[in-house]
């Protein structure tokens, strides 16, 4: 690790990790939003001349399941990694600045990320059996929960980053 810091500063190192975490979150957000739309408003028939929204929700949701699981786990690992730095160099100034609600929503983000991690096995199972109509309701709600949690976490991460600004 010391060799790495001969080439880049510590600040740059953590910024790179934060950007990777953010990019992974964007990919996860896209996959989960497509999937959530496909279960909320399924397209019954293929429409060649369909508009953007129809095409957006016309995806084969099952094809996203494994990717979502991998992306959630990898994004979680990167988040857990940079959390150590956040705790000292971001949270302390947030508290000193009195941004308590901002810190509160960040705590909620970490809670939702862990609960989401626990849902991945059943989420994967339900999507791998997507032809089984018995699972339709559970599949829809678990997917909605993960999509909602992902959107919340993404927006909170963006807000928290704005408190100190890029690279600070």
């Amino acid at each position, binding site marked *: 690790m010391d060799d790495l810091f001969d080439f880049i500063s510590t600040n740059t190192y953590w910024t790179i990790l934060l950007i990777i975490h953010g990019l992974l979150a964007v990919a996860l957000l896209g996959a989960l939003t497509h999937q959530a739309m496909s279960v909320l408003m399924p397209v019954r028939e293929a429409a060649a001349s369909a508009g953007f929204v129809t095409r957006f929700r016309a995806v084969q949701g099952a094809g996203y399941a494994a990717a979502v699981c991998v992306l959630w786990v990898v994004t979680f690992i990167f988040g857990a990694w940079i959390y150590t730095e956040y705790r*000292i160099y971001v949270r302390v100034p947030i508290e000193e600045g009195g941004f*308590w609600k901002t810190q509160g929503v960040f705590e*909620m983000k970490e809670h939702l990320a862990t*609960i989401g991690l626990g849902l991945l096995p059943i989420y994967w*199972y339900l999507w791998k059996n997507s032809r089984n109509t018995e699972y339709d309701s559970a599949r829809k709600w678990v997917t909605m929960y993960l999509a909602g949690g992902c959107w919340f976490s993404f927006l909170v991460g963006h807000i928290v980053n704005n408190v100190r600004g890029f690279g600070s």
Partner: protein
Amino acid sequence: MSTTTNTAPAGSGSKSLASSTAFKTFAIVFGFTTATLYVLCDLMGWPLFSYHPATNRVELFYARPRQGEGPVMYWYGWTATAMLGAAALGMLATLLPQQVAGKIPLALVWIVPVLAIPLLFYSLMPFWTR
């Protein structure tokens, strides 16, 4: 020189897991007990370990901040407690007779995580009211 031929079709591992009733039971129980245990860990203060990021010190179970060593983090410990506990309960559930395991409501996998939200929100009350 001998050769071996893998006759298993590609992706058969995930297919067999997706058709396994034992995995289904594990996944259902793991899903709702992770949320349950995590909420309990948060409300009761049950981290498997505590981490001091400034000094890289790890202590078993709950530890208070040490003088001059910065803040202490419990989230990793709560996550570990919830995951390991839920995995153990999920494994135990696979040992249940099928007629019993089959009666575990599938809806718990989303109802329990939804119910966890107001409880976790409540646990953060000091942040909302300060």
